[in-house]
């Protein structure tokens, strides 16, 4: 599904942050990428999703065998890559429902499916809203406008559930969530687990992994994968901290 080979990247005109990341994610797998602050977690999410402001200086990323880095951000999304934002963006004036429908139809078109009619769309929306306990009124607002921190994160997972990506990258989706919201978000992620889908969770804390149990855990440190293991590696990190990986905090 996803093959990252010797990936080097920097912030445009800035210092190098990723210094040779290697990672392979197969369909059906859930991977957790953990690491101290400044280890390059968000840069990795940004580079994979095509966020402007990063420059790949070396290496390769293949998504389903295609050169992911050669694709524009919208193209990646239509091809099945989804990024759940660490800081979801507020867009006043763009209605949530309208936005979601435009996104869904763009993705469906790529998959060779027809546009959903209003009835089908609403039915699908209601089912997923329930899963994440999001009030329907939130969808009548501008995208993320007036949402609490937890609502924004739930909205990310809701969008993911609607768009049904092949590869989901969750960037610190657990940060800033109380325990109830964390459970809802986890439920949403677990509902999406499946043999044809891969999920990459980027997180600082082990907490989320109690609810969404990963197949593989990787420690990102100094711009490289410093260690990989099974779910027990996360528990180990919880005990020892990132001290061994160069984080003074």
């Amino acid at each position, binding site marked *: 599904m996803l093959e990252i080979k010797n990936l080097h990247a920097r912030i445009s005109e800035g210092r190098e942050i990723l210094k040779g990341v290697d990672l392979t994610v197969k369909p059906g797998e859930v991977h957790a990428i953990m690491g101290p602050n400044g280890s390059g977690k968000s840069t990795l999410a940004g580079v994979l999703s095509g966020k402007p402001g990063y420059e790949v200086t070396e290496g390769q990323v293949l998504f389903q065998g295609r050169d992911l880095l050669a694709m524009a951000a919208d193209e990646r999304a239509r091809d099945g890559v989804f990024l759940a*934002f660490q800081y979801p963006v507020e867009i006043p004036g*763009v209605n949530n429902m309208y936005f979601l429908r435009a996104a869904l139809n*763009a993705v469906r078109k790529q998959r060779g499916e027809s546009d959903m009619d209003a009835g089908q769309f609403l039915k699908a929306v209601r089912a997923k809203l329930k899963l994440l306990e999001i009030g329907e009124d939130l969808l009548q607002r501008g995208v993320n406008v007036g949402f609490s921190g937890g609502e924004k994160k739930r909205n990310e997972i809701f969008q993911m559930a609607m768009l049904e990506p092949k590869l989901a990258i969750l960037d610190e989706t657990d940060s800033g969530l109380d325990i109830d919201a964390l459970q809802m978000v986890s439920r949403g992620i677990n509902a999406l687990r499946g043999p044809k889908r891969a999920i990459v969770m980027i997180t600082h804390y082990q907490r989320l992994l109690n609810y969404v149990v990963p197949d593989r855990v990787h420690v990102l440190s100094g711009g490289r994968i410093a260690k990989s293991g099974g779910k027990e590696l996360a528990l180990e990190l919880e005990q020892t901290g990132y001290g061994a990986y160069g984080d003074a905090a």
Partner: protein
Amino acid sequence: MSALAEIQPYVEAFKARPNAAEPAWLKQRRESAMQRFAELGFPTRKQEAWRFTDLQPLQRAAFPPPSSVSRVAAADVAPWLYGAAAHRIVLVDGVFAPELSAIGALPKGVWLAATAETLRTRPELLDAVLRETDALGAQPFIALNAALFADGFVLALEPSVVLGGTVEIVHLGRAAKRSSQLRNLIALAAGSRATLIETYVGEGDYWTNAVGVIAVGAGAALRHVRLQNESATAIHLGHQRVELDRDARYENFTLSLGGRLARTDIHLKFDGEGAACGLFGATLLRGEQEGTIATVVDHAAPRCVTREYYKSVAADRAHGVFLGTIGVRPHAQKTDANQLSKNLLLGARAAIDAKPELEILADDVKCSHGATVGDLDETALFYLESRGIPAAEARRMLVEAFAAEVIERIEDDAAMRAHLGHHVARWLAGGVA
């Protein structure tokens, strides 16, 4: 063209006017207005109010009033009509077109008719208003309009009359290298209420020179929407002169989409205590369009409120201008005024000049103003793209949202908001680079 050559075609057009059966005072008034225009000539960029406006398209050719009226089929007007209108007047090349209009049954105490018709049948409605606007000072285009106007519309409400349905006025320009000199009057007597939308549309390179004189009486309320959707090669100058009496409410929303050169002026004066105005609008410019919004609000009475919010978008090589002055006279205490101009630049060669200005001579007031010029929000753009929305569509959505945010200021009228939103979407369908 030299200054003299510029005005000559208009002087000649004035001399050649048919000897209409008009009251003596009006004839006199036209004479002196023409003289005034001849003295003033076209504004130059040395004049502060015209500093940013390039009048070249108007100066390169002459636009006398038309000698005949274009034939227009109902189907030509249909795409521009407001579905929810209750009463409609259509003017073609500045002249009332009864076959295209549908004034309908008017409640008692409401006068809605063409200006020429009003002059014939109810001249007293126009007398005071036309005399008064003589004293407009250095406004050459108003003087020219006063001299040459043939028609326009008049909406007059008697005290306490509430006109429930929306009045629609459509101005259609069709005659190449000709001008529509429109004189419009809205007079709301004490306690009356009305909603009106004026739409300016057309085809070809004509000039619309519209002057609206608006008086809102004590406790009366007017919502005045202007949809400026002139042809891409037309010139539009629309000047509103508004006077508000005690506790009056006036709301003006201008959506400006068309025209090679378009300028909207609003000159509003608070004449009585406790009145309020809302001046809102969105201007979308592309290609080589030149668009100006110029407002002057004169707080000449205490306890009045001004809410002013204009947005503009300039793509390609377009140029937008916002000039906003709020003046507070020494005795206009407890004035509450704020003004905001937000602008979006979509191209490296597009430009926007925003010049907000406060002149406060009273000491117990609450006044603020602000202006911003920026690009599309990159993070919002990426967010939309990251969900699969194509880049061009994402840009379009953000520009639409930018305009929608100010259209939202039209409260309690979903049909009107939808109508304006529809025209914004139409404009955007042309693409934003």
